[in-house]
């Protein structure tokens, strides 16, 4: 679905590359996690996976970017709209400001694509339900709390039903139950709609439960990639700025005294139960 081959990218005026020799292959129906310290390149990778690099952010780009068999460098950003969607880190950047209610805001992208009215309504209703915004559908986007705006940003992208959905810290302002719901929805999108889902996040507990593969970035490079438990329970995770789950931290502390605890250490509640029962 998306392939980056040897991508090195430098923001305009920056001295060091934000991504360095990154090769990533994203396929449909799978969930990918991007983790790492701040400034490791997580957001930049999200931009590269959705064509915002090179079409919105200029700068120096080397390597190849392929999206659904097309060379991203010679496509327009608009032509990629149905293929890929990006949920920005700050939901405020996503709200168009051109619509007066939550419902209209969610429909905005579909209107621009000329989707028939009846289909538009049903897709918008579905997105409202999925993100728990139904009761707020008639409110102005600017009367929402921070977390509610973030739900709106996610709904605006879900409704577009892109083949690949990339989300940059989509749940940073969401309450714990809302966070779990969003990860559930994304997991289902991959399973039921065959969407490729990529999530950059610090919230490892839910990522570990639903991701097929995790990429750990360090200084612009993909340092580790593999199944979530393998990558996220690594002993060097802390040095690389990754916030291990408390399950991993507790198991690691115990492993010094309890020999039966073997690696890979648990990352999720279920794995911890299994290891510590």
């Amino acid at each position, binding site marked *: 679905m998306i392939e980056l081959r040897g991508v090195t990218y430098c923001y305009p005026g920056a001295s060091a590359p934000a991504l360095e020799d990154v090769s990533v292959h994203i396929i449909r129906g799978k969930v990918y996690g991007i983790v790492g310290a701040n400034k490791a390149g997580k957001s930049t990778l999200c931009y590269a996976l959705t064509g915002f690099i090179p079409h919105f952010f200029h700068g120096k780009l080397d390597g190849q970017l392929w999206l659904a068999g097309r060379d991203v460098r010679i496509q327009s950003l608009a032509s990629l709209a149905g293929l890929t969607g990006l949920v920005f880190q700050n939901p405020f950047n996503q709200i168009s400001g051109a619509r007066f209610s939550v419902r209209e805001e969610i429909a905005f992208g579909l209107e621009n694509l000329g989707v028939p009215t009846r289909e538009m309504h049903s897709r918008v209703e579905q997105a409202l339900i999925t993100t728990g915004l139904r009761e707020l559908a008639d409110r102005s986007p600017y009367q929402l709390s*921070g977390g509610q705006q973030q739900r709106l940003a996610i709904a605006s992208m879900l409704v577009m039903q892109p083949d690949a959905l990339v989300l940059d810290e989509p749940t940073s302002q969401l309450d714990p139950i809302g966070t779990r719901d969003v990860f559930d929805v994304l997991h289902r999108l991959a399973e039921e709609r065959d969407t490729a889902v990529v999530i950059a996040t610090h919230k490892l507990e839910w990522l570990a439960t639903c991701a097929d593969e995790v990429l750990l970035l360090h200084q612009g490079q993909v340092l580790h990639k593999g199944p979530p438990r393998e990558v996220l329970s690594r002993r060097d995770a802390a040095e690389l700025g*990754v916030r291990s789950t408390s399950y991993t*931290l507790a198991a690691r502390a115990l492993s010094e005294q309890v020999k039966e605890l073997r690696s890979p250490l648990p990352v999720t509640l279920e794995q911890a139960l299994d290891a510590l029962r």
Partner: protein
Amino acid sequence: MRIIVEDLHFTYPGDVHALDGVNFTVESGEAVAIIGENGAGKTTLAKHLNGLLTPSQGRVLIGDWDTADVSVARMAARVGYIFQNPDDQLFERTVMREVAFGPANIGLEGERLQARCRRALKQVGLLDAADMHPYDLHASERKLVAIAAALAMETPIVILDEPTTGQDLAGLELMGALVESLLGEGRTVLAISHDLDFCAAHFSRVMVMADARILADDRPEVIFQQKQLLTRAGVDAPQLVRLAQALGMDNVPLTVPAFVSAWLEEYHDHHTG
């Protein structure tokens, strides 16, 4: 400095009832975490504590000041408030000027002003960035600039709105150390947070908000074992508490060391002993 909130009601234009009869008292030096689902009224409540919003009904006292009678600028000497989104509060050309803005407004100048700003920047690990433009920093660092700006006011009360959001491990540890050091100086810290593991580790009192009211207000070990209450408020217990519950342990461990000793006592020693 005591905070008293009495029968606080607040309605936004458009008839959105954000606070519906909130009452509590916070004593000097307390560490209070406010948790609850999106839209529960947490940020609206916090904005009443520094006078950014004034009650539609009821009153808020910060020491002997009623927030309805005191300007936001004066309140800034008693309550430091760090927004959820730092971009809501940053406007200066350099990090140093940003941090100096508040203290300069209450009359500090020269070397005293410089020293205070340097101390605040050091506390958040940004002393080297003093001459940079805030918008040349990463979003997580801009949050630290906003925190330094509030710290530089050296207020008796500090309010943090989602301090750990978007922070990596280093940022998370820095926030924990910051809360502890403020408490060590005897200051009052209130935090709004969805990061329950963070709340459990650093706060001795937890308020649970839902539907514009406070549902519960107690010690974390009491709050975090009430599953129904937490679900109703759109939150979950911290990871270690959930694990302890799933393992059938009686303890409610709030930190990794607490979990480890409880597990060894209740589980392992029992098996091997």
